[in-house]
């Protein structure tokens, strides 16, 4: 048997091996892609119920007797603030379902509508005090369990004891539905309110604003310092200087330090040493700024490196100083790259959760933050808080918040891609 025969003999096996290996490659790509698809699909499916909300039409009687207020031509705001508004929806419900005497059932009946309805009614009355003494049909927010029932998320066939909604409540809702008193609407609350213990009233506006303030601080801290550090390291640093080497090692290492360690730094240095207010966007932004710094430095250096030497040499040849070359030519030319890197760094900071837990941004904050010092939370931390809540309806809210977060990240990345495509220069 000569060499050619030996090779021929093994050929079939080798080709089979080749095909097998290629199949492994396709297989691993398919696995990764299907995991991504499964994740996105699963979250979208879970989020869908959160975008609509159930409303119930009630005939609210704003009579003086129910509100316990004397007839007057005008009322002060303080007077209107303290009225027993919680009685209005309850009374209307008792009228819709007369003859319920059982205390437990009465309580269940009152719980058909959200406990926040009284505040909405209060705001309506304060806005328009002429309502007092009249009666009006108003669509009010249903309780989250009723909302789940109407959306079909609660199985009516499981035993009553295992269900969050009792049989008589189901009967009431069915009756209301027959009378066209139940309606599903777009969940506007989700975008206009802060956090709440009641799922039907909880929204992400507080978290969004918190994220915005935090990101502003992060950007203000990391962008100028990052670009400045990168310019120094790339243009002015002496090679083979121990201090410069140390800075380089530190930057590369900081880019890979676990984010939670930055949280510990924030807790020990910013909050305990410098007295920065806990839970405030200022503290969060300072922590995330330090975290984003290495990313911005590394990408800026790459962008500066990619400016061809001919540009520098031409400027130097015309008599510009080194600083003039950098400020007038190198930085403007590398700006698209710098911005792309910064946006990607900011996107990473926007999704970061762990370090913010350390500095107390995990506290329950119902108010919408108005500045850099107010206690607040951010979008990913809000996701974490909601995912920890026992109420089932929070699952949908969590998923919806995740979708919002992913949309923001997607937009930021898209912006980065467009910037790169639009200003990309081939030298």
């Amino acid at each position, binding site marked *: 048997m000569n060499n050619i025969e030996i090779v021929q003999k093994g050929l079939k096996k080798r080709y089979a091996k080749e095909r097998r290996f290629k199949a492994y490659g396709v297989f691993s790509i398919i696995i990764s892609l299907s995991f991504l698809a499964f994740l996105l699909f699963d979250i979208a499916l879970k989020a869908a119920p959160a975008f609509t909300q159930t409303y119930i039409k009630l005939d609210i009687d704003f009579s003086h007797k129910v509100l316990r207020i004397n007839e007057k031509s005008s009322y002060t705001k303080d007077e209107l603030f303290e009225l027993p508004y919680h009685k209005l929806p309850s009374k209307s419900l008792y009228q819709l379902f007369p003859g319920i005497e059982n205390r437990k059932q009465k309580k269940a009946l009152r719980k058909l509508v959200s406990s926040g309805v009284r505040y909405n009614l209060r705001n309506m009355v304060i806005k328009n005090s002429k309502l007092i003494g009249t009666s009006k049909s108003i669509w009010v927010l249903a309780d989250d369990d009723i909302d789940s029932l109407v959306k079909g998320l609660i199985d009516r066939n499981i035993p009553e004891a295992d269900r969050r909604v009792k049989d008589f409540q189901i009967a009431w809702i069915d009756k209301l539905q027959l009378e066209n008193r139940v309606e599903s609407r777009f969940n506007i609350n989700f975008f206009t309110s802060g956090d709440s213990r009641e799922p039907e009233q909880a929204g992400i506006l507080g978290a969004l604003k918190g994220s915005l303030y935090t990101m502003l601080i992060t950007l203000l801290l990391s962008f100028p310092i990052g670009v400045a550090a990168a310019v120094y390291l790339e243009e*002015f640093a002496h090679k083979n200087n121990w201090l410069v080497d140390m800075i380089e090692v530190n930057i590369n290492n900081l880019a890979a330090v676990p984010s939670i360690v930055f949280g510990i730094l924030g807790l020990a240095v910013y909050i305990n040493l410098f007295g920065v207010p806990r839970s405030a966007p200022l503290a969060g932004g300072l922590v995330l700024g330090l975290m984003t710094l290495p990313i911005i430095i590394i990408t800026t250096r790459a962008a500066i490196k990619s400016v061809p030497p001919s540009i520098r040499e031409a400027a130097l040849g015309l008599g510009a100083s080194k600083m003039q070359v950098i400020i007038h030519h190198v930085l403007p030319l590398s700006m698209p790259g710098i911005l792309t890197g910064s946006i990607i760094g900011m996107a990473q900071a926007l999704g970061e959760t762990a370090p913010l837990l350390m500095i107390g941004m995990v506290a329950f904050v119902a108010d919408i933050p108005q500045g850099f010092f107010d206690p607040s939370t951010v979008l990913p931390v809000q996701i974490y808080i909601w995912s920890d809540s026992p109420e089932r309806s929070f699952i949908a809210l969590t998923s919806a918040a995740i979708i919002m977060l992913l949309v923001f990240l997607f937009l930021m990345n898209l912006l980065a891609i467009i910037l790169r495509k639009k200003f990309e220069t081939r030298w």
Partner: protein
Amino acid sequence: MSNLNFFIILLIIAAIVFFIGQKKAYSYSMFNGGAKLHSLPNYYGYLTTLWTFLPAFGVFVIWSFFESNVSSMLTISQFSELQQLSVDELSLALNEIKILAVTNSSSVSINNQAAAVYSEYLNHSFNLKILVSVLLALLGFFYTYLRIKPTMQARNSVEKLIVYVLFTCALIAIFTTVGIIFSVLFESIEFFSQVSITEFFFGTHWSPQIAIREDQVGGSGSFGAVPLFWGTIFISFIAMIIAAPLGLIAAIFLSEYATSQVRAIIKPILEILAGIPTVVYGFFAALTVGPLVRDFGYYLREIGINLDIEILANLTVSTESVLAVGLVMGMMIVPFILSLSDDVILSVPNAMRDGSIALGATKSETVWRVIVPAALPGIVGGFLLAISRAIGETMIVLMAAGVAANLTANPMNVVTTITTQIVTLLTGDQEFDSVKTLAAFALGLGLFVTTLILNIIALHVVKKYREQYE
């Protein structure tokens, strides 16, 4: 006037003095018989601005950082009642004082008096800070303004100043590392003075509950961190078992087999996986993958009972299983390994590929016998970085793994990790110097040192490898 307002005023002043400096330079060139200026008039303006702004701003920032601490220390020194408090009580009292100082309620408790003193100190400090900043700004302004003359080398001075500013910015990287080390080191030393090092590193029992009463049973708290180390390693191991082959083979496929069109589509899609925040993975692991794995565990147990396999029949199954967490973490790391391996594989010179193909090797033989061995240091470096990421990952384990410290080799069971414990110990009630919080800092130190070593080795290996082919 708030800090922000003062900062804005400082900026406006800085802008105005630019024109003053510039005008003086102009006046020399235009009216004094056209004396030749060394630099462009703008540079005289810049120089004035920098000297006016930088010292004032620097002092302002540093002062702002320390004023609340110095004020509280001065307040404590005024009240002997506060000096007698223990460290925990003092930090509580200080918190209350700070809140009271803002809300201005009127009662006569000690804390309230202290709050009044505290806010007075803060006020003084603020006024003094502004005064010093303004003085420095004036000093800086006159220092430059009086020196402006045609022979002054304004541009050189400006450029030298800017380089110093740039250098200071670059130093922040070192300050950050120093800050990290300082913030964990002292607390860790304090911790190890209360808990022996051998117990921490070799003890197998972790339950950081501290006694509320002196005589409480089992309330002494034990800090044997071996179960945490094991949990972290176990989860990272499972993640790497999934991510390493998937990521490496996908990278090889994309760089060696796929056409450029396929690559241009698939790579960005897989990079989406890398961009998804970890809190999303955590949610997915806790709510979807966890229950799926649990059901699979029940199924295995049933098979074990039916077929009389003892190991399977006695399987402990949990929703917060190691397998579920490791699986999701593995998928999170895939794009990370993919892009790192992709880089090193692409940087293997084409001559080596062509040489191997020309000798009659198939593509897969080329990959396994030429490219992968050549790229091995880079690939290993990437794996090390991925391991360091898995060890430091917090949100997935926090949401989907448990807090029960178990020493188990059963992937269906619960374990806890270093990062989970840091978060649970530090986000609970805040008595800052209890052994519990100190333990979190000791764990943080361990985490930082471990990932530091891994990162330095990995970066060194990758750098050496790059140099080989450049």
